[in-house]
């Protein structure tokens, strides 16, 4: 019984981490039809900024619980600074291109940002464990877990809910949905496409940075962390169906639990389990589990 609980807990936790990154990825794809490989770099920037700011904040004699706000603040900071720069500077040029060109362009961007990260933050690891230790532990059956796990999972759930609420309850959200389905008609109706694109990209960037910032207390932040996250979150997004938020959640849960099972029972399989699941689901459902319908182009 404990074994199942551990797997579930680990799986859900890993899913929360993947979901935060995949959410932005799938949002950006849904609106702009661009699969943003550089999304991993935004995650990396979030992690580095979060870690550095937490370290800085902890040295001051401030209110200790403020570190969580610092994490959120650093994610927003990264998102609203880097998001517009990347969207206006690079991504904007590729909206009219076929799907593969932006894929390669964002890959190039990813390479560039990876080195920018090294230039800004150096190559030595950052350990910002304060938020993890502050919250203490809780017992779950016979197993003790950091409370921080719960905080992390709630951040992911709240982010998903917020995005859902914005999309369904605000005028801006309805605009975004319209653009998602038909950019030309929505433009003709008076929706300003560049503004929608800029806003969605920034929101997506904030989610990626949020994932990075909240992961940073649990690992050492080292160069190369962007590479790992991007492929896993691709798997999540592709399993769930590109552009679908609920799909991303289901995909994240599937990947999370499969990975946790593999880690506990078949450690040898851990590295390729995710990809096998992804390939398996794509073989059965070529567009992912919850695809967005598209018309055929003749």
């Amino acid at each position, binding site marked *: 019984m404990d074994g199942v609980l551990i797997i579930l807990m680990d799986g859900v936790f890993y899913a929360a981490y993947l979901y935060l990154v995949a959410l932005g990825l799938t949002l950006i794809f849904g609106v702009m039809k661009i699969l943003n490989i550089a999304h991993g770099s935004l995650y990396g920037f979030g992690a580095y900024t979060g870690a550095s700011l937490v370290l800085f904040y902890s040295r001051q004699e401030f209110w200790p619980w403020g570190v969580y706000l610092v994490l959120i603040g650093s994610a927003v900071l990264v998102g609203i600074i880097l998001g517009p720069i990347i969207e206006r500077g690079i991504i904007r040029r590729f909206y009219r291109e076929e799907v593969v060109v932006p894929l390669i362009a964002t890959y*190039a961007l990813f390479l560039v940002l990876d*080195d920018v990260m090294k230039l800004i933050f150096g190559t030595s690891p950052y350990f910002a464990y304060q938020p993890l230790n502050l919250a203490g532990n809780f017992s779950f059956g016979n197993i003790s877990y950091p409370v921080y796990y719960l905080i992390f999972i709630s951040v992911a759930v709240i982010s998903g809910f917020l995005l859902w609420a914005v999309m369904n309850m605000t005028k801006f959200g309805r605009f975004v949905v319209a653009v998602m389905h038909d950019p030309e008609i929505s433009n003709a109706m008076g929706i300003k496409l560049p503004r929608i694109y800029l806003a969605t990209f920034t929101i997506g960037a904030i989610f990626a940075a949020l994932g990075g910032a909240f992961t940073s207390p649990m690992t050492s932040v080292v160069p190369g962390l962007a590479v790992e996250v991007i492929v896993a979150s691709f798997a999540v997004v592709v399993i769930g169906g590109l552009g679908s938020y609920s799909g991303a959640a289901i995909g994240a849960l599937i990947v999370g639990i499969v990975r946790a099972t593999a880690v506990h029972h078949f450690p040898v399989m851990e590295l390729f389990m995710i990809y096998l699941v992804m390939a398996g689901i794509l073989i059965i459902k070529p567009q992912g589990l919850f695809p967005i319908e598209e018309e055929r182009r003749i």
Partner: protein
Amino acid sequence: MRPFYTKFFLILGLFVVIGIIVPAWMRYLLTIALCKGIIASGVMLLLKCGLVSFGHALYSAAGAYAVALTVKHLGVREILIIIPVGVAAGILSAAVIGLIVSRYREIFFAMITMAFSMAFYGFLVKAYGLTGGTDGLRIPPPTLFGSALPEGYERFVLYILTLIFVALVAGILHKTERSPFGFLLQGIKGNEVRVSYLGIPVQRAVLRTFIISGCFAGLGGGLLAVNSGHIDPHLSYWTVSGEFVFISLLSGVGNLNFVFIGAILVEFIRSYAFSYVPYLWQMILGGIMLLIIIFSPGGLWQIYNSAADRLKPSLKDSNPGVKHNDS
């Protein structure tokens, strides 16, 4: 002789001369670059029908590991046997995976090829008993026609051998580009639905392209293994596939044989960037890639073509180069 063959043998001769006069380290770089060019030519073939494979490292790694395992377990070091084994491994892996991926297009194609290569990477890392895990495998110097390579000239002989394979691939690419099959690839890129309405089984054509590209990747991977003498699972990592995509993009799909020029350029840029600004080489590669995509989407081929246009307007008609012309 037709002008292509004159040019072809001139360039080949030029490469032999270069191999003789340049220092050994540069020749080695050149050899590695040519091997990567062979692999990238497979990616390029797929790019021609509008498909980006972000997992081509798998087929080259399959070729490389097939070579290494043959040498290790069967004790065969004859280069004329182990290279075909590598090619066979490339073809086989591409045929199996191609059956699945040939149903997908665009992003899904890129992602699922990437997924397979990452799964293979995981396998190579974990199957320690077979592949040596992250330590990789060593490949002892090969033999040619049953005898060891002449002492002191091993590298040179390998370079010439690589060059022969490159010439073979270049010839095939040149023929393919001008064959009905080559034009079919462009058709698939332009509008797949129309092509299928013309009565052509698109999926089978994509599968065939995929297998051919896997064959090149296996060949390149096998040569890479023999030339470098050591392989590790990183060969199958997705960033390596990204590098092949970069090479093909830099070269430009308009002329498939430009892939070798692109590969050499990338290898040298990388080596120099790596030795002068070790933390910035990725940035330099990425920056160049972005500049190419934004300002010269046809790659080096487009730059060459417009330069040739300016020099000699008549040159333009002798090359049936493909201009970017999407529906």
